[in-house]
């Protein structure tokens, strides 16, 4: 009755002639894969028997292009990697080049970097929760609340960096422009208002029986698999590994702020969802402290040359704790104006590799929720 359509009949035939083995391809145009991403799911009845992620639809050859353009020329392209968190990608790239060329960053620039990075984390986590609950079927309500808050943060980015999502704000040795008059007060206002949104979200969804039923025990990522698959960020911490690069590497001025790193024990979708909620509360604490202590002073190290900037030969790996996980840039310089090798460590792609293990044995409806809980952005997956 259910004819075994789909492109690869041989694979299903090999599995023995069973009733109702159905091959569904949740294709690139599927409404709930976050961007152009395909999953070939083999179902037996409702449960997933095999899942093969297929991506590469958004591959733009970012790393090869970076080998032809100057160091500065690649900076705007890092915005387009993970288009939800352009500032953290900028910072990771700037950090890598600063390690390569051994540049120092003035105090005010470090504070501005921390503030913008934490604001990016807030709006990214809000969006992720909105998308995930949209996949769960809540008709857009959580998404709209998340976007309402995100708009305020994007307005801050626009008045600081000039563009809402493609900020291109960090330079090697500091930030491009200083905060305009009144920006710090506006940022304090937005941050002060944020906990109200978090309480609203927690009340609306955290203890909601249907959300708990749909996400608890679904898509469990065991602790050792998370470590072996080198997952990072909320996906790793939900599986019980308390690893946060802000605490281990002590980059930027994070050691001046006291914030805690929430850790989950079950490693299922509900933990990943709640972890992001708790991380947002921690980010609000960091932001309040940073906005208080930000000193005056130059925003960029004056001696750095903008054009024909040629760092000494060598290699460097700069990484930071992005909202989706550890985003890193590995550069090999041969002394010329453009890097010899330019490699991005995309947290979305690496977290995605564990997707099949999480989905085996789950229902079709859960595949979409698990994908939502990993929080991938295809720009970063395909580069």
């Amino acid at each position, binding site marked *: *009755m259910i*004819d075994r359509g789909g492109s690869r009949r041989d694979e299903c035939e090999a*599995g*023995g002639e069973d*009733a109702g083995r159905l091959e569904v391809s949740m294709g690139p145009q599927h409404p709930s894969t976050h961007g152009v991403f395909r999953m070939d799911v083999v179902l037996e009845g409702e449960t997933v028997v095999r899942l093969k992620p297929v991506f590469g639809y958004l591959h733009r050859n970012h790393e090869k292009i970076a080998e032809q353009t100057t160091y500065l020329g690649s900076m705007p392209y890092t915005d387009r990697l993970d288009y939800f968190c352009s500032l953290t990608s900028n910072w990771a790239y700037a950090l890598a080049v600063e390690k390569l060329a051994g540049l120092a960053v003035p105090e005010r620039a470090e504070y501005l970097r921390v503030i913008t990075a934490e604001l990016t984390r807030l709006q990214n986590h809000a969006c992720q929760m909105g998308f995930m609950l949209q996949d769960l079927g809540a008709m857009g309500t959580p998404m709209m609340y998340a976007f309402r808050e995100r708009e305020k943060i994007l307005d801050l980015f626009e008045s600081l960096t000039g563009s809402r999502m493609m900020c291109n704000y960090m330079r090697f040795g500091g930030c491009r422009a200083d905060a305009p008059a009144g920006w710090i007060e506006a940022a304090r206002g937005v941050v002060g208002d944020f906990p109200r949104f978090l309480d609203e979200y927690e009340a609306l969804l955290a203890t909601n029986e249907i959300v708990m039923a749909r996400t608890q025990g679904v898509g469990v990522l065991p602790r050792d698999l998370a470590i072996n698959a080198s997952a990072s960020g909320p996906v790793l911490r939900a599986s019980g590994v308390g690893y946060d690069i802000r605490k281990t590497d002590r980059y930027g001025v994070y050691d001046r702020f006291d914030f805690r790193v929430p850790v989950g024990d079950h490693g299922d979708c509900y933990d990943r969802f709640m972890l992001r909620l708790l991380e947002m509360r921690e980010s609000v604490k960091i932001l309040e402290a940073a906005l208080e202590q930000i000193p005056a002073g130059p925003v960029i190290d004056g001696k750095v040359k903008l054009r024909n900037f040629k760092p000494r030969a060598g290699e460097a790996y700069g990484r930071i704790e992005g909202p989706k996980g550890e985003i890193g840039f590995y550069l090999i310089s041969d002394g010329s104006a453009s890097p010899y090798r330019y490699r991005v460590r995309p947290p979305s792609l690496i977290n995605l590799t564990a997707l099949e293990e999480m989905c085996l044995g789950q229902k079709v409806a859960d595949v979409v929720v698990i994908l939502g809980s990993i929080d991938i952005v295809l720009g970063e997956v395909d580069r």
Partner: protein
Amino acid sequence: MLRRLVHCALCWTLSMAGVAGLYILAGAEFLGLAQLIVYVGAVAILIVFAILLTQRRELLSIERLTAGSWVTGVAVAGLVAGCLWIGLAYTRGLGGAGGASGGPALETRELGELLMGRYVVAFEVAGLVLTVALIGAVILALPFEQPREASGRRADRPAAGEGWDARRQGGQGA
């Protein structure tokens, strides 16, 4: 082939609804609606699902719907219907008193009292039969998993090609 089968099932459902209409016209409103619920609501879906679940192989071959000796079947049916019809022609005295437009219709309250009154045993037994039948049907239809051989073929199933399939393929091979 499958298309005609599903059409059969749906037209059958329509005829059941027709019979329900007849009941209502005959004044037994409660019966008509009960028939509508039971047949159109439940049995029709049961039959259509059964058709879908058992049509895996027949999709391809276009076989005749009727068995080999269909002529005799129709003849016998015609004979029986003929006798009924003739018997009917000679009965007299079947005046009609009731009817929706005519006399008093069946009183649902009265039917209820009867069901709960004198015939409560029949009512309970009918319920019991339904439950037992339901459980039996579920057990019969449950796909129990036997241990699979290495090749993934079920242990109890004759390997492809021999046993029952061989005879059939042999028969149609030419």
